[in-house]
C-alpha cells in the first residue's frame, strides 16, 4: 500500500510537469490555433540558458532570472514574430510542420553548441527524502508539485479575475466579436506566447534537476503534453491540469503493475478512448463550428 501511495505521489509530481507543459500548449492553441510540436524542446531549452549563464560564474538566482528573460524573449516573443505571424493565415498544418522543424533545430543546436551529454542541474529543493506516514517522497517531487500547482492557479486567477485575462479569453473564444468590443486581439495573442515562454522556463527549472539537462529531454515530454492536453480537454486550462496529473499517475502505475514494455501504450490507449468517446476531453466543452 505504501508503495502504491509512493507511486501515485511520484506520478502526481511528473503529472504536474506534464500539466505545466500542456497548459502553454493549450494556451497557444486557444489563442492562435498554433499546434506547437516543439513544446517539449521549449521545456528542454531554458535549462541550458541557465547553465550557460552559470558558466559565466553567475550565482544560481541570477542564472534563473536570465533563463526566464531569455526564454520569454526567444521562445515567447521571437517565436511568435518570426515563425508564427507569417504563417498564421495559412492554416494549421504548415505552421505545425514548421514547429517540427523548429524542434529539430533547437535539439541539434543544443547538441552541437552546448553538449551532447547530460549535464547536472542544481535543484531548488534539498536532495533528501521526506518520510510521511511510512511513505517516502523526495523533496524534489514535492517542490515540482507545489510550484506547478501554484503556477497553474496563478494563471487561472489571471485568466478569470483580471481584465487582461478576461480579454484574452474573449479574444480566444471569438476574435471578431472581441475586436468589435475593443479588445486588442493581436496583443492578447502575444501575451499568450509570452506566458508560454515563462511557463516552459518554470517547467524546465523543475524538471532538469530530476532528469539532468539533456538535448533529448523534450521528446517524451512534448508527446506527454499533447496527450495531457487532449485527455483533459484541448480548450480548457483546467482540463490540462487534470489531464497532466491523470497521465502522470497512469503512466507510473502502468509501468509498475502492468508492463514496462508496453508502458508507452497505456497513455496512447487512453488518448484514443478519450478522443473517440469524449472528443472534447474530460473537462472540455464542445467547440462550435460554422458550416
Amino acid at each position: 500500500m505504501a508503495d502504491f501511495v509512493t507511486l501515485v505521489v511520484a506520478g502526481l509530481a511528473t503529472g504536474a510537469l506534464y500539466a505545466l507543459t500542456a497548459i502553454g500548449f493549450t494556451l497557444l492553441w486557444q489563442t492562435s490555433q498554433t499546434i506547437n510540436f516543439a513544446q517539449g524542446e521549449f521545456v528542454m531549452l531554458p535549462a541550458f540558458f541557465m547553465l550557460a549563464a552559470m558558466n559565466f560564474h553567475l550565482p544560481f538566482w541570477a542564472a534563473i532570472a536570465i533563463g526566464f528573460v531569455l526564454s520569454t524573449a526567444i521562445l515567447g516573443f521571437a517565436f511568435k514574430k518570426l515563425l508564427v505571424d507569417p504563417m498564421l493565415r495559412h492554416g494549421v498544418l504548415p505552421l505545425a510542420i514548421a514547429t517540427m522543424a523548429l524542434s529539430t533545430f533547437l535539439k541539434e543546436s543544443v547538441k552541437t553548441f552546448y553538449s551532447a551529454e547530460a549535464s547536472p542541474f542544481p535543484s531548488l529543493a534539498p536532495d533528501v527524502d521526506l518520510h510521511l506516514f511510512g511513505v517516502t517522497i523526495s523533496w524534489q517531487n514535492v517542490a515540482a508539485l507545489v510550484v506547478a500547482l501554484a503556477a497553474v492557479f496563478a494563471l487561472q486567477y489571471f485568466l478569470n479575475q483580471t481584465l487582461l485575462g478576461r480579454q484574452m479569453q474573449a479574444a480566444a473564444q471569438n476574435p471578431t466579436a472581441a475586436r468589435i468590443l475593443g479588445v486588442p486581439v493581436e496583443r492578447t495573442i502575444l501575451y499568450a506566447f509570452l506566458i508560454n515562454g515563462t511557463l516552459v522556463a518554470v517547467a524546465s527549472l523543475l524538471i532538469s534537476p530530476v532528469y539532468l539537462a539533456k538535448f533529448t529531454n523534450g521528446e517524451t515530454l512534448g508527446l506527454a503534453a499533447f496527450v495531457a492536453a487532449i485527455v483533459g480537454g484541448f480548450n480548457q486550462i483546467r482540463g490540462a491540469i487534470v489531464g497532466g496529473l491523470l497521465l502522470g499517475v497512469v503512466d507510473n502505475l502502468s509501468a509498475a503493475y502492468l508492463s514496462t514494455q508496453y508502458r508507452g501504450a497505456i497513455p496512447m490507449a487512453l488518448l484514443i478512448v478519450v478522443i473517440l468517446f469524449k472528443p472534447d476531453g474530460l473537462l472540455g466543452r464542445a467547440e462550435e463550428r460554422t458550416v
Partner: protein
Amino acid sequence: MSAKAQTLIGLLGLAIVAAFLILTPLTLHRYGIYILSEWAVMTIAAIGLNLTLGYAGQVSLAQGAFVGIGAYAAAILTTHGWPLIAALALALVLCFAIGWLLGYPALRVQHHYLAFVTLAFSTLAFLVFRNEFWLTGGTEGIDGVPRPSIFGLSTTPDLRYYYFCLFVLVLAALGALGLVRSPWGRAFLALRENPIRAMSLGVDTRRYILMAFAIGSTLGGLAGVLYAPLVGLVEPPAFALTLSFDLLMMVIVGGSGYFAGPFVGAMVAVLLPEWLRFLETYYLILYALLVMALLIYSPTGLVGIVDRFVVRRRTKAASAARAALSASIERRAS
C-alpha cells in the same frame, strides 16, 4: 501561350526529369544510388499521404506506421522463403484493411483530434514492432531481407533494384493520377473543401473518408514492401513517429494537394540532408532552418511557388487581352 504549347512544355519537362532519373544513377556510387532509391520509395508513401491529406483533407500521422507494416510483412515472408509478390499482396490487403479501420475515428473527429488519434496509432504500431519478438525480432529487427528476381532477373545489384523502384513509382503515380482525375478524385476534393456541402450534394462522405484512408495507407504499405529489400535490415527505429512526421513534412513542403508535391517534398526530405552533409555536425541545424524559411516564404509548399507564378502570368495575360479588346471596341465606337 496556347494550350498546345503548354502541353508541349509540360511533356518536355517530364522527358528531362525522366532522362535525369534514368541516366544519373549510371554515374553514381553505391550510396548515391541507395539515396535515389530511398527517394523513389518515400515518394510512393508521400503520394499515398497526399491522397489522404492533400486531396481528401484527412490529417494522418500514421503513414510511417503503414510503411512499417509493409516492410515487416515483406521481411517476415521473404526470409521464410516466400516470394516478394506474395508479401506484396499480403501487405497491400493488410494496409488497406487497417487503413480502412483507421478511417473510422475520422468519421467522428477531425483536424487536430484526428492527427492525434493517428499519432497514437503510430506509437502503438511502433511498440508492437519493438516488443513482439516472436514476430518482428524485437529491437534486433529482421536482417538479410533478400531482393527479388523479376522474370528471372536478379535485382541484387543496386542499380537494377533502383530501376525496379522507379518502375513501381511510375505505376503508383499513374494509378494515383487516374484516381485524382476520376469522379473519386473530385469527391475527395469536395470532402476537403466542405464536407457538409459535399454530403448535401449526395456525396457518400462516409465511404469516401474511409476509402481515402484505405488507399493512402495501401500506398504506404507498398513503399514499405519496397523498403525492406532495399535496406536489407528492418528494425523498429526506422518506423518510429519520426517517419510519419517526415512523410507529413514531405507532403506539406512539396505542396499539399498538388500532384507534383510529394515528388518535390521527398527530394527535400531525402536528398537535401545528403547535399548538406559537407557541413558535418551543422547539417541538420541548417536543414531545419531551410525548411522553416521555406514554409515562411511559401506555406503552400514548393509547388505552390510555381503555381502562384503561373497564375500571376495567366491573370496578367488575361487582363492584357481584356484591355486590348476594350480598346478596340472603343476605337470602333468613335
